[in-house]
């Protein structure tokens, strides 16, 4: 049997952005694929010792512990098939801890093996959490300021702490990591980046709560809330082709009532949501299919 073509797809995201939830839910979806164009399992990888217990927790609606930075799990291996084209794919999806990427930013370096992976990557799934602040809030709101200009008689103001690399804003860190990646890949073809807005259900809930006439698209949300990263991807479309996805892989929060709600689904696939512009499904393989050109007609990159 000829080995399947190997497609290294990297997961990149800071801590708490839903990378592991995505991997586990993807594994589930590939077993119960409802989209006739979606990827399915062709076979099970030999070693599922990392994935199997997490899958059980996911089905019970439980939260996962953070992925360990010091003891990273082995690269997640999926033997997939794309039924419409008959293509067999071997997907390598290493699940690195978010702290690892923080450390790359702070140390201003990539380990050589990670740099090699970036160089050879078929694409990147870039995770951001819908509930995170992309940037720091500027002290310009009158409510946050002392009403009077300080005078020599004023009581001493609070002393601001000094900036350190760890304090950098999330979108700054991600732009910088992509700048590092573009240096590593200099001269290579454009790299596809699927931006994964995780916990997308929060955005839709908010839109419903605010009685917005139209629910925001992932691109609308991303442009408004992650502007520096959005501009960077748009301006560098020759280096990075990007497309924005709203993803709900866990399907809800971690409170007791939320866990109860999650386990009440008769079909756990219904917990999952993937929003690609106006297309809605539970096919978590869709962003990977976009990276691998397995969506027909192929949606144009957002940038």
């Amino acid at each position, binding site marked *: 049997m000829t080995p399947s073509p190997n497609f290294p797809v990297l997961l990149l995201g800071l801590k708490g952005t839903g990378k592991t939830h995505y991997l586990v839910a993807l594994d589930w979806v590939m077993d119960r694929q409802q989209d006739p164009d979606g990827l399915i399992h062709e076979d099970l990888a030999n070693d599922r010792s990392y994935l199997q217990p997490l899958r059980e927790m996911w089905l019970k609606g439980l939260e996962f512990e953070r992925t360990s930075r010091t003891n990273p799990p082995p690269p997640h291996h999926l033997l997939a098939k794309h039924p419409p084209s008959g293509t067999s794919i071997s997907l390598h999806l290493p699940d690195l801890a978010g702290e690892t990427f923080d450390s790359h930013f702070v140390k201003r*370096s*990539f380990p050589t093996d990670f740099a090699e992976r970036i160089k050879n990557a078929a694409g990147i799934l870039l995770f951001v959490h819908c509930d995170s602040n992309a940037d720091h809030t500027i*002290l310009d709101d009158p409510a946050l300021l002392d009403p009077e200009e300080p005078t020599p008689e004023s009581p001493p103001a609070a002393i*601001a702490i000094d900036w350190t690399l760890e304090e950098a804003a999330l979108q700054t860190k991600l732009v*910088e990591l992509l*700048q590092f990646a573009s240096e590593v890949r200099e001269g290579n073809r454009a790299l596809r980046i699927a931006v994964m807005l995780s916990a997308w259900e929060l955005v839709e809930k908010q839109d419903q709560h605010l009685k917005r006439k139209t629910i925001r698209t992932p691109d609308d949300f991303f442009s408004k809330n992650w502007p520096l990263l959005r501009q960077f991807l748009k301006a560098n479309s020759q280096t990075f082709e990007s497309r924005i996805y709203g993803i709900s892989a866990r399907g809800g929060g971690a409170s007791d009532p939320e866990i109860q709600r999650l386990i009440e689904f008769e079909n756990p696939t219904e917990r999952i949501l993937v929003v690609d512009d106006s297309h809605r499904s539970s096919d978590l393989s869709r962003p990977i299919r976009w990276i691998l050109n397995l969506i027909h007609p192929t949606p144009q990159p957002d940038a």
Partner: protein
Amino acid sequence: MAEEEEEEKEGEENGRSTEVLFHTGEKFSPFEASNILTHRGAVVVLTSGGARSGKTTFLARIGEMFRDGSFGGFTFAESRTLCAFERATWKATVMAGGGQPDTDRTERRENDMFFHLRVQGGDSVFTDVLISDLAGETYPTIVGSADAAANLQAMSRCEHLVLFLDCAKLVSLSERQPEWDNAGTFLRRVHSRRVGGRPLHLQVIFSRWDHVTRHSKRDVQETFCASVETDLRQRFASNFKTLEFFRIAARPRGGNPTNKEIQKVFATWCNPVSGYTPRTFPLSDSHSRDFSAFTFGNLKSE
């Protein structure tokens, strides 16, 4: 962490590098700035003015507008000095924990260091901008001594000079005349330093403009600033390729920052008519060409 350090150490001992290193994210040294000049071309800008006249806050505000997506007409494409921009803004953020927005002063050792921004204009043209922020304490030194100006590499190389006139001083009877006078002397120093050199564009900024708009005698203050503008125009318009005036409050107390005016200044730097032509191919494999452009032929890479 300990494991990682051990691995790195082991790698180093075996003579192989375990890490691929990247830029620091802090302001560029002249050597790093030269690298951009050599390979892409860039517009070089020098901001100058007295201590606390709002130079760094103005630059921080440019960074903030790109970060919050409000900068009109330009799209952020790259910055190799993102950490320097973050640092400039930090003390004006809630996270920093100070009760009032503040900006760290630029120190003398930061002279001839550069912020970097690469932007895409509405015409899809990319522009690299290198901005040197002259330490406030250096400004009176230059006013007092021609030698001090001679030692500034950014002053020799810049295409745009931005001079900040501090409105907090211009509204003060005791301080307004020295502020005005120093500006004139500074511009004469720059002109004599640049005679015969490449054309220089001058932007004069009435900074911290909210000190004028909030003043109980606003009309009087505005008239005074207008007479400073007229005087500087009469004396210096012929010495610079272009001369423009702006009224800016980058972080006013009450009211909104004058974002549009700040964007206009930035747009002036990126305007090809003001002398900037983006380089579309490398002109040289060696940095020496741009060292000479920076007039630091003897400078060696560190």
